[in-house]
């Protein structure tokens, strides 16, 4: 199956939302986030590092996530990201918008 990378503008916003969603379950390092998105999407979506890290820095600049150095499961130094309060609110907003949008698109696709 062809893997989709998040390159276009349209999907970049979606990637941010997905990252927020993944981090909503708890803090995680960069590789873990990419891995989790791939797992959850049943390997349909693959997050290239070229998209992941810029997105992480962007989110951090917005103040939606914050980071801290820690030790990974394999006893290695890694940078862990977690949602901030503002990030949690942002996730709710994006979730809501997304639901509305998919519903609307779904309606159109069904009716047409």
């Amino acid at each position, binding site marked *: 199956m062809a893997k989709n990378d998040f390159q276009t503008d349209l999907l970049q916003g979606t990637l941010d939302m997905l990252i927020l969603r993944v981090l909503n379950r708890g803090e995680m390092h960069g*590789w873990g986030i990419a891995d989790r998105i791939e797992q959850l999407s049943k390997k349909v979506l693959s997050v290239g590092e070229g998209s992941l890290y810029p*997105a992480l820095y962007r989110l951090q600049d917005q103040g939606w996530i914050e980071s801290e150095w820690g030790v990974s499961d394999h006893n*290695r*130094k890694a*940078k862990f990201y977690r949602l901030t309060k503002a990030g949690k609110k942002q996730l709710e*907003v*994006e979730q809501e*918008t997304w639901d509305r949008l998919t519903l609307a698109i779904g309606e159109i696709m069904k009716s047409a």
Partner: protein
Amino acid sequence: MIRRVHVTVDKKMKLFRKFRAFFRKEKLDAEMSEEMRAHLELQATENQKRGMSADEARYAAQRAFGGVEQIKERARDERRRGWLWLDQLTQDLHYAWRQFQQAPGFVAVAMLSLSLGIGATTALFSVVNEALFKPLPVPHARELVRFTWAGNLGQIDSSFSDVVGDGPSHWTGASFSFFTAQRFQEQDRLLQSLFVFTSIGGHTIVADGQAEEAGTGDYVSAGYFEGLGVRVSLGRALGVADDRADAPLAVVLSDAYWRRRFGGDPAVIGKTILVNLNPATIVGVAPAEFRGVGAFGRKAALFLPLASVERINPGAFDLTARPGFRWVFGVMGRLRPGVSATKVEAEFAATFQRSIVDNARLSGAQHVWAEGLPPDFPRLKLRPGSNGGEFVVLRAGGELAVLAALAGTMLLIACTNVANLLLARGAARRREIAVRLALGAGRARLLRQLLTEALLLAGGGGALGGLFAWWGGDALAAMSRFSSVGHIEPDWRVFGFAVVASTLTGVLFGLVPAQRATRIDLNVEFQGGPRTTGSRSALRLGKTLMMVQVALSFVVLVGAGLFAATLRNLRAVDVGFPRERLWVFELAANSAGYRGERAAALFERVAAGLHELPGTQTVAVSTFPLVAGQGTINGGRIDGTPAGSSVSVAVNEVGGDFFATFDLPTVEGRTFTARDDSSAPKVAVVNRALVETIFGHESPLGRRIRFANTVATVVGVVRDVKYDKVREAVPATIYLSLGQGTGGRASFAVRSAAAPAVLASGIRRVVHGIEPNLPVLDLRTQDEQIERLFGTERMFSRLSILVGGVALLLVSVGLYGLMAYAVARRTGEIGVRMALGALPGRVFAMIVRESLAFVAAGLVVGVATAWAATRLIASLLFGLTPTDPLTYCGVALLLGFVALLAIWLPARRAAKVDPMVALRAE
């Protein structure tokens, strides 16, 4: 499309994070590398779990990851998106700094040029600012309005001061008669406050037994301090209770006078002093920054109640008998909130015109405009009063324009000079710029880089220029006739002006050279090199700029030449009497209570006392000092002839050895004797000019002349001497006997062989011995006195010579730079010429000829410009026309000579080109 909604992002935190990111770039970069390495390791571990070998797992992870550096760069861009410009700016600045370090000579010359240009314009602006823009130091100055009027004065029988004529029979003024001002005051409810004031110079103050001249006193109505919102720094202000004719006299001192005379002693409040011999109590001290509303040129030392003006200066304005005659009172008001000046003006307009008509009727004039007012009758006009609205400024308009033109030209010359330098530098940096373009630098980015350099230069020049302006402003004010402005306090306006001027010049001289420098054809650049082609157009532009510079310098130098010649001509004018060893001073006997005969007797006593001083030859007494810009002109005619035959006559009341002192032997008849006193019939001595204008060839002796409500019999005729001004021809002059005069103020002229210091103390001793309450005013030599008249001319002459000198310097530096650059560019070509047999002398001549061609073109443009521009200063010149051929030729020769000097070295270098070396380099 998903729309981002920014909900609760703490903006401050965000900004803080960005700032931190910007300043901790290295640390964040290191963290990023670390993070990515961790990522790769995790991926490799995962791969190993799936059964890959350790090496394989690592490679696979790296393959999947892609270029670490690209990702880092993208991440970096993401992180500092908002700060990219700042990042690039620091880069630009850093780079510009390195460029400057490589070319310190270029930077020094450019900065110096700019600082001279910007400094001169800023210094000038600070003077103009002081005069025109700076508001009075009072709260809400914008609410203040100044009453003014405009119209034809022809039919109004009054005496006006500070009137500006704009066009025939149309005048503008800011002073009103006492009668009119009173009518305004009756209507003051239209304004939040309305107040009236007038300035009188030369008060004698006696404090602690010491008599001294205090300077200007401002007489102000009750609402003055309150209406302006001026709060005294000590004691109390003048109020309603003080502004009554029968009130005990109260005085508020200016801060400067308080410090000068009383050493800033707070105990002066309540102290009694004598103001023109009237006891007055010091009730307050005005704040340091407040010097009255007549800000420009008239700064008050004392503030006194308006009601006391007659008591302190008897007869000065004759307010009781003729309140509508002297128009010397300023009127200002503060607008009520929400009421426009136009509305108030409409309310007062009728009052103003009616007061003039009423006054004419009251003073018994025949015509009282029964058939309605003529259309050009003076109309009231309310103007903004935030700067005091003084009118002296308007009169200075012409001078300010000339100064502005001078400073502007200087700035323009500096700009062209720096533009040329940048152009040459851009050409020298072609290779570097080409390499940067080839490596992928954006043209816009490069343009910005070059502009940054230009702006940096301008900024540096501006800062330096600001420093020049700081002390230059004071010097300029001192040089100008605005010397009474005193210390110039640069405020935010001056600062803003310097910043704007620097930025504008930076963009102006930076843009074109920068644009040119980045317009490079890379193919041509790397194939043939810049030696043969490419730089031609830059050189052409450079030559055009040089031409402009030569033309501008020519104009400035012609101006300098004309002003210098004017000053020389003025100084050489024969005033009609010998000026050597002649000392002049004034006595204001009226301020010590002397009037009329008593004053005349006092003056004669002083004159007699001065005669006793060792070394004294003669002593003259007169109402007006000669050639001092003072005097009175009346309409005069032979008694019995109709009023229409009046001509202008100058009048002076004289006594002592006046005619001997000024070397005026009688041509006919006699001069005055002691018998010509107030009891004798009034007699006059006239000058030849008067005889010629009024009597023609008849003998005037025994004839009667009528002027200013007086009739006098002519008893003698004397030679002509200058009256009040050097520039003007000797007017028809009538001399009256001081013994029959009315003046309370006199000027003494002492011709003495004594040493100056001895004479000065002798004069003071004599005057003090006769009347201790009478200070000796303004002791100076006659030469100094005459020189004072040339203030404006001196200022223009000095300034234009200064600007001209700088222009000459800049032109020679610019020319040298341009030609040195041109020769360097053409080394190859010259080499070929020499190889083909051209002699060094011919090469030398070729270079000189080429450069002189555009210098000559600049001179032609300069002559045309000067021809047109100097017309505007025609009225300021004396003894020569604005197109004086001698000046034009002299300046052209000077410029040509300096140009030749500047070209000499580069041309010599061209002639010394070794064909072998030049061709080998090719």
